[in-house]
């Protein structure tokens, strides 16, 4: 016990006041004369006892009041252990990232994950009986496997249930998760992290992984600090869909992390058959590219992979999967005016120039298209056609609602300001930039994240002489001209999309068709509109695949009942029937091949590979780990409830208790003194 203001204890000397009043002043009573003592009786003995008792009680209360007053001003406190060991929540976090599948170095035969689980169980076994604990799995995201429970069996079972994962762990995710948990859990927590402490798990900003004040971080490194040599297939570039097998190329990057220069054997595997083998010289701690010319796959979807013989401790990353679909070129419908020969020419040339030439352009005029069934085409292009037969428009609208896609270009012929077919809007105005000052307009803003413009690079140098002004409404504006006129817009209608290009596809309204960027635009737009983009490309573990378009407005009625179907790498369906009917996206949690049937009726084979950063087994230096584990106690993010370190030695002020006691004592003194003085009141 201590005092924050001990000098106020000198005020206790004021206790001399009641001592004077009670013990000294009492003796100065003067005798009182009366006429006669005839009717008085001596009450000395009893009265003195009574008086002494009352005086002593009153004297005690008054002395206590003075002492308590001095004590209250001295602000007493005492330090005490406020937190028992059983009150501290024990958190056991196990890194279940892909790198934990590597074999443990040295004499150990198991994987790092096995060792992490063993150590976690060991920590849980040493907790006190009443202490609550919680098991956390750290993979792509932080998962709480249990509630805070004291049942050792349940906790052990939760640890044992952790299976090898393929995700990529980040300590930043762990820090964010713990900070979120600290907002609801105010008791001290002890976080035991079992991880291989990969360098790649560190976030870009160290502040992301700082623990809140009430978390005591204890790090358990699994494996050696020394970086293990590891070769891996870092990436594979292959067409998702091909027509000509001889033109197809597969480019794989072989990387070595902490490896000496060596020659590795790379194999191209198609449907579990090695079709090509190549040797590649990988420099020390470097990368090498191996190219496989031709990809002889059968019609349909093939499960392919590039594999190396690494002979290292981490064999799981020696194979990288990719899916290839071989099919005849798909037809796409290109509707144009009869007098417009430029747009089909330029668009067809660009489509043919694309690498894989997966689409065959079928030009047609609106008059010829009345009985066309758009579902037989990969996608439809309406190039500068102000009007199309109502039957075709109705058919196209139904096709879009069901998942079909349309590219609409509003060239010069759209200047009549009529309704734009399928789009649902009209041209509000027309900008003839050729008649203006500079004679053209350039692209001002462009959203490079849109699948159709990923390689557009801003369409630099492209001159637009004409653009229709169209109200985007709820459509996504992908590109704008310098004056703010929306140039490329993407509107979702039902399950499909309508991509609006507010200029022409010829070289009259702009010079884009004369630019190389036009080929990339046509290629990417074709892939986007045909739905190939959704299924192709490299996917990493823990990424999401969109199963159906977001439900909005009236279109929701048309998509009701469309189910999706997913078959995972293990051959099981991860979605329940209810989820299959409503899920809009799905997280790809494991590496391998996912067979997906989308809501719009299309099928795709998706290859999923672990994050290549997991193959770099370089670990975080010890000094960084010490800084991290010390940041929990010494950081500046101490919550209002106090840090755990301070909580162990909490200073509890006794001021309020002293004041409460003082109040009670004062009231008792007043009551007793009033009662004492009350004897002088006149009796009626």
């Amino acid at each position, binding site marked *: 016990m201590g005092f924050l203001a001990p000098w106020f204890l000198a005020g206790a000397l004021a206790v001399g006041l009641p001592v004077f009043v009670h013990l000294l002043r009492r003796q100065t*009573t*003067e*005798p*009182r*004369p*009366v*006429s*006669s*003592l*005839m*009717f*008085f*009786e*001596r*009450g*000395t003995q*009893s*009265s*003195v006892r*009574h*008086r002494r008792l009352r005086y002593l009680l009153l004297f005690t209360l008054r002395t206590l009041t003075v002492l308590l007053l001095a004590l209250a001003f001295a602000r007493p406190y005492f330090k005490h252990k406020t937190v028992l060991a059983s009150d501290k929540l024990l958190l056991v976090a196990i890194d279940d990232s892909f790198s934990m599948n590597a074999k443990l170095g040295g004499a150990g035969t198991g994987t790092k994950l096995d060792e992490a689980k063993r150590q976690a169980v060991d920590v849980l076994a040493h907790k006190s009986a009443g202490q609550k604990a919680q098991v956390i799995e750290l993979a792509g995201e932080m998962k709480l496997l249990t509630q805070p429970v004291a049942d050792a069996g349940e906790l052990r079972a939760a640890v044992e249930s952790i299976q090898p994962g393929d995700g990529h762990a980040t300590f930043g995710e762990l820090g964010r998760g713990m900070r979120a948990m600290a907002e609801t859990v105010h008791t001290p927590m002890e976080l035991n992290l079992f991880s291989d402490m990969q360098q790649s798990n560190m976030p870009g900003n160290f502040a992301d992984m700082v623990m809140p004040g009430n978390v005591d971080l204890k790090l358990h490194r699994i494996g050696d600090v020394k970086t293990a040599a590891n070769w891996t297939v870092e990436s594979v570039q292959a067409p998702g869909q091909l027509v000509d097998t001889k033109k197809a190329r597969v480019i794989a990057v072989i990387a070595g992390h902490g490896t000496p220069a060596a020659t590795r054997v790379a194999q191209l595997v198609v449907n579990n058959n090695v079709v090509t083998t190549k040797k590649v010289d990988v420099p020390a701690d470097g990368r090498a590219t191996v190219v496989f010319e031709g990809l002889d796959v059968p019609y349909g979807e093939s499960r392919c992979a590039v594999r190396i013989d690494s002979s290292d401790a981490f064999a799981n990353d020696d194979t990288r999967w990719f899916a290839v679909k071989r099919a005849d070129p798909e037809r796409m419908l290109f509707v144009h005016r009869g007098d417009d020969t430029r747009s089909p020419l330029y668009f067809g040339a660009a489509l043919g120039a694309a690498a894989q030439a997966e689409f065959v352009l079928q030009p047609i005029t609106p008059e010829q298209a009345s009985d066309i069934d758009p579902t037989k085409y990969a996608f439809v292009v309406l190039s500068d056609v102000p009007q199309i037969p109502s039957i075709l428009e109705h058919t196209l609208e139904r096709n879009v609602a069901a998942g079909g896609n349309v590219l609409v270009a509003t060239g010069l012929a759209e200047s009549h300001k009529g309704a734009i077919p399928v789009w649902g809007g009209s041209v509000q105005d027309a900008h003839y930039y050729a008649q203006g000052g500079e004679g053209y307009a350039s692209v001002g803003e462009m959203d490079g994240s849109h699948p159709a413009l990923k390689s557009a690079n801003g369409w630099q140098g492209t001159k637009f002489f004409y653009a229709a002004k169209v109200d985007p409404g709820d459509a996504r504006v992908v590109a704008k001209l310098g004056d703010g006129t929306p140039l490329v817009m993407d509107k979702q209608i039902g399950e499909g999309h309508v991509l609006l290009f507010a200029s022409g596809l010829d070289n009259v309204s702009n010079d884009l068709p004369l630019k190389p960027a036009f080929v990339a635009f046509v290629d990417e737009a074709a892939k986007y509109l045909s739905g190939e983009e959704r299924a192709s490309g490299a996917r990493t573990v823990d990424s999401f695949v969109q199963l159906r378009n977001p439900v909005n407005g009236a279109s929701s009625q048309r998509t009701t009942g469309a189910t999706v179907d997913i078959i995972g790498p293990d051959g099981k369906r991860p979605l329940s029937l209810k989820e299959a009917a409503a899920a809009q996206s799905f997280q790809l949690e494991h590496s391998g091949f996912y067979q997906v049937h989308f809501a719009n009726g299309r099928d795709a084979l998706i290859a999923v590979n672990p994050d290549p950063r997991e193959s770099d087994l370089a670990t975080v230096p010890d000094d960084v780990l010490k800084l991290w584990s010390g940041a929990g106690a010494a950081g500046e993010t101490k919550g209002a409830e106090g840090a755990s370190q301070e909580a162990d030695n909490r200073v509890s002020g006794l001021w309020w208790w002293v004041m409460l006691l003082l109040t009670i004592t004062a009231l008792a003194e007043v009551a007793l003194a009033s009662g004492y003085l009350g*004897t*002088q009141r*006149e*009796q009626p």
Partner: protein
Amino acid sequence: MLQRFLDPAVLQGISGLDLVAKTVVDGFVAGLHRSPEFGFSLEFAEYRAYTPGDDLRHVDWNLFARTDRCYLKRYRGETNSQMTLLLDASNSMKFTSHGVTKMDYARYTAASLFYLSLQNQRDPAGLIVFDDEVRNYIRPSTRQGQLYRLLAGLEQAEPAARTDFAKPMQYFQEFLRRRGIVLIVSDFYEQPDKIIRAIEPLRFHGSEVVLFHVLDPEEIKPKLKGPQVLVDLETGDRLEVIPDYVKTQYRAKMDDHLAQMRERTQAAGMGYHLLVTDKPLDRALMEYLTLRHSAIAGAA
């Protein structure tokens, strides 16, 4: 307006007892509105036929001249007209709680009675001052200057010694040769039996005896601020008492004492009046005279 001057505290500011008596009695009489019901003597009561042996001085000669019959005039109280006042001058009479001592109050009362008797009624009045001895004696008389002699006797009467009724009463009986009114002013701190036993002979002698019991209000309802050591003014004895006793038992005893004094005196054919020193003087006089008139009327 005059009532204000009858307050004991106001009377204390008046220097001379004669002025005090005049103030009290004149103010008191002025407030009677000429009531015929009050008076000591010379008050006509009835006619009685003359019988041989009657004093011829009382024959109504005017009536005899008119009717040729001899009648005597009878007056009320003609036999009690001599007033003798016994004043207790013991130390206990010095007690006061509000500025006017019991002795002062007794002086004012006595002076007023003397004034009333001598100036208004022309009755002889005398004074005996006593404690445990007879300190002063002024024979009853109606001579010129009697009032001032009496008042001077009152002025000189200073409290001293203790009270003892037996000796002064015995002494007084030697002086008392004629029946009259005997007024005893005291605080009567003695057992009622002893007091009555000492005073009763006066009554047997045929005098009308009236006791004026002078007490301070603090003596009737004392107030103590806690346990207190009390000193007896007469004996000097000390006694420590507690407030609880004073609140309960003392008051009971005092009430019992007053009740006994009243009952015993009335049983002995004597008058009794309690005078509390914080009450106006005229109230005490009025009470006394009213009762006396009733008694005389009843006797007649």
